[in-house]
């Protein structure tokens, strides 16, 4: 029998002053070389599970701890996080606090030096970690100059540098674009396969990582609710925790297909076996969409869309006219952006890390001055930046908003709580209500920068509903996001930025289907559909056509 690399024996843990335990009687055994995904809604105990594995619980956080955790064979009651770091590399959520030194090279060298490696081994380890993560060009950069995505990769490099036996990662893709996020997951799989490194990955966007996983642990209120291979987990989720089901699994469930797929490849293989893939059934994907009644919306691009609406030309709620933004060093972040949003229009802004999305949003409400060009708006532009905590200055929720606005935001019952004690979704809702201002007149435009980071599906659904309501009230909605599923749920139009330029601008059905990265999981499985509901309808239609008379 192989000795486990991580073992939880009836672990129960309660944070200091907390009423309920964060972990309840958790028993887990992870073998060397396993790739494990930890799933669950917000505050279900996933992050605490990682902190217990790394020894921070209970050594760093205190609280009441029962049971036993063995990490790399070391009992965490006897060995603190520093000793456990020799066998476990750890990366937490907030990239800002995941680096501790001032240069990237020093950051990657730190864990190796702490383990007592000599200069040659440290230098080799730094180079290897940098090569593995593609951050060689960052080695001599100062850490305070790096973007969130770059910081996240540097933090991961530091966790990897000592070639630990197990990697404990808490949402390492939250700041990465879809391409970089997918690449990171496959890099982890490669490390797992080539070096036998065990991986425990906490992730909300399960569709991104289930295909690489060997096993899924699902947490519910601190207890381990499911421990199964990906397909077994998806079957469990379909019955017991629909909020955790991936889009692919929901697509199959709605279409009445089995087994639920853990990734696009499996899903397409199943569809192929049933003769339901459009290209293999001899259908042209666009036509198949029409057949199923999922008609692509007519293309609409910027102001031309407004012009097509007829003689009563509505001025755009928000427009960027030949907008350029150049940094003091001369690098152009935005290059001649021309973009207009009609009142009530819902637009998703997508693109790689560093494409210029956040900079464009900061121009929308005047936080930045254009180098050239201009921004026009018919009224106030509400901008919600990436971290909702930045909007909270009062000690109570009631100090941030008047009672009427709190009631409208559905937060009246939380008025006496501290804003930072709210859940992620509630904080986002409060921050959105603050920037919207509870005005009699809704803002001309509501802009949000990466609002779904770290949110579970229920919170994302709530946010999408509120943004649709804002659009229905006449505000244009512009959301910068790396989450194609959220973009497909919310937006009617998608603008794709690359290197400061608009490279695609069209209806959501056109931009988010048929691609590899900027596409929903459903679109990658079934051509002609973006969301599981549409995809299931399409598949049922194909099944009907193929059924013998």
């Amino acid at each position, binding site marked *: 029998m192989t000795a486990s690399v991580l073992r939880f024996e009836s672990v129960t843990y309660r944070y200091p002053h907390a009423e309920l335990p964060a972990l309840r009687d958790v028993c887990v055994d992870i073998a060397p070389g396993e790739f494990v995904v930890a799933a669950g809604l917000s505050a279900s105990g996933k992050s605490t599970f990682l902190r217990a594995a*790394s*020894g*921070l619980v209970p*050594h*760093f956080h205190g609280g009441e701890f029962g049971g036993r955790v063995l990490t790399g064979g070391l009992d965490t009651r006897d060995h*603190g*996080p*520093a*000793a*456990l*770091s*020799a066998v476990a*590399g*750890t990366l*937490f959520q907030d990239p*800002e*606090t*995941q*680096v*501790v*030194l*001032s*240069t990237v090279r*020093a950051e990657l060298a*730190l*864990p190796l*030096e*702490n*383990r*007592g*490696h*000599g*200069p040659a081994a440290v230098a080799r380890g730094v180079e290897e970690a940098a090569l593995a993560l593609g951050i060689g060009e960052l080695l*001599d950069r*100062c*850490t*305070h100059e790096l973007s969130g995505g770059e910081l996240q990769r540097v*933090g991961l490099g*530091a966790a990897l540098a*000592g070639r630990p036996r197990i990697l404990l990662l808490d949402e390492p893709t939250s700041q990465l674009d879809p391409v970089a996020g997918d690449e990171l997951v496959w890099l982890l799989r490669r490390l797992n396969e080539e070096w036998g490194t065990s991986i425990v990955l906490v992730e909300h966007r399960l569709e991104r990582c289930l295909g690489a996983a060997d096993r899924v642990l699902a947490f519910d209120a601190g207890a381990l609710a499911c421990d199964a291979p990906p397909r077994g987990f998806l079957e469990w989720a379909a019955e017991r925790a629909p909020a955790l089901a991936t889009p692919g699994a929901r697509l199959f469930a709605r279409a009445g297909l089995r087994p639920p797929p853990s990734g696009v490849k499996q899903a397409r293989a199943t569809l192929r076996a049933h003769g339901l893939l459009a290209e293999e059934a001899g259908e042209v994907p666009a036509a198949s969409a029409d057949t199923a009644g999922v008609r692509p919306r007519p293309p609409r691009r910027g102001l031309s869309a407004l012009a097509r609406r007829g003689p009563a030309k509505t001025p755009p709620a928000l427009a960027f006219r030949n907008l350029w933004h150049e940094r003091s060093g001369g690098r152009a972040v935005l290059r001649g952006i021309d973009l207009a949003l009609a009142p009530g229009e819902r637009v998703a802004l997508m693109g790689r890390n560093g494409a210029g999305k956040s900079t464009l949003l900061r121009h929308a*409400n*005047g*936080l*930045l*001055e254009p180098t050239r060009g201009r921004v026009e708006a018919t009224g*106030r*532009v*509400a*901008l*919600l*930046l990436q*971290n909702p905590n*930045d*909007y*909270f*200055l009062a000690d109570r929720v009631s100090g941030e908003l008047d009672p009427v606005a709190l009631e409208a935001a559905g937060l009246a019952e939380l008025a006496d709580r501290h804003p930072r004690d709210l859940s992620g979704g509630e904080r986002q809702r409060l921050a959105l209500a*603050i*920037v*919207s*201002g509870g005005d009699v007149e809704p803002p001309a435009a509501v802009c949000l920068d990466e609002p779904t980071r770290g949110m579970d599906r229920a919170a994302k659904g709530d946010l999408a509903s509120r943004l649709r309501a804002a659009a229905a009230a006449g505000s244009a909605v512009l959301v910068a996001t790396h989450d194609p599923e959220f973009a497909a749920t919310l937006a009617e139009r998608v603008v794709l930025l690359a290197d400061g330029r608009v490279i695609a601008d069209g209806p959501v059905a056109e931009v988010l289907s048929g691609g590899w990265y900027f596409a929903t999981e459903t679109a990658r499985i079934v051509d002609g559909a973006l969301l599981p509901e549409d995809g299931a309808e399409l598949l049922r239609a194909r099944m009907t056509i193929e059924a013998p008379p």
Partner: protein
Amino acid sequence: MIRRAASPLHAARAPVAAAYACAFVTAALAFEHPLVLAAIGVAILAAGLLAGAGPQLRRACLFGVPFALLIALVNPLVAREGLDVVLRFGDMGPLGNLDVTKQSLVFGAILGMRALLVVLAGAALLAAIVDADELLRRFRGISARSALTAALAVRLVPVLGRDARRLADARRCCPGAAGAGAIGSLERLQIVRAVATGALDRALDVAATLEVRGYASPAAHGRARRPHEPWSRHDISVAAAAAGLVLLAGGARLLGVASFEAYPRTVAPVGAGEWVLCAALVLVALAPFADRRGVLR
């Protein structure tokens, strides 16, 4: 924060570069003679510019010059010495009889100048030429706990700075703020309070990261002492310059060169000794820059 440049100061090891910056501070604190302080100021600025630290010195001046002016203005109001009265305010109640003298004005200017030199050398030049990571790594072998505290503080400065900028941006996004309009004093205070109250949480997060990187492991402390590294020519020349500055300052004080009396009358003799001392300070300070071979490490 250090931004590596091709200079002998950056090529020298961190403790040596730190000693060089501290030697300027020592020299500035050793003298009150305005001519010598001016020479030290010239040496600091020249060394900073030659090391590519001009922007950091300029930024330090934005804070240091108002600070120096404040000291220069306060001294005449609190000093009750000097013979030549230039302004009579008479009886100022609890402050007593307030007369401003020429001597207190001059000495106030000298104190302000010293403060400015300390800021430029001890903060701006030090931060620009010393690799804090390397310094902390070497320091860990001596005192692990102090090094941990210093590492936390060093990392927290940029983290809290970013927090403050994000909070300010968020304030500007709130209704009532006119887009990129300036935020008011009350909101600034609220931001400072929010950053200060969040500092403990941020410190805990950074400390947790240090923990899981193995900073507190016993092996880390034992290995912090690196194998012997031979001294480079830049280590030697910069260390010699630092020692030279301290020796010049100490020697001049012992020999009574550049003596200064502020009260009751300002006495600041300017003779050959003072001029030689000024020239020597500048030459010794800039001597490492004569050899720029192999300055890129």
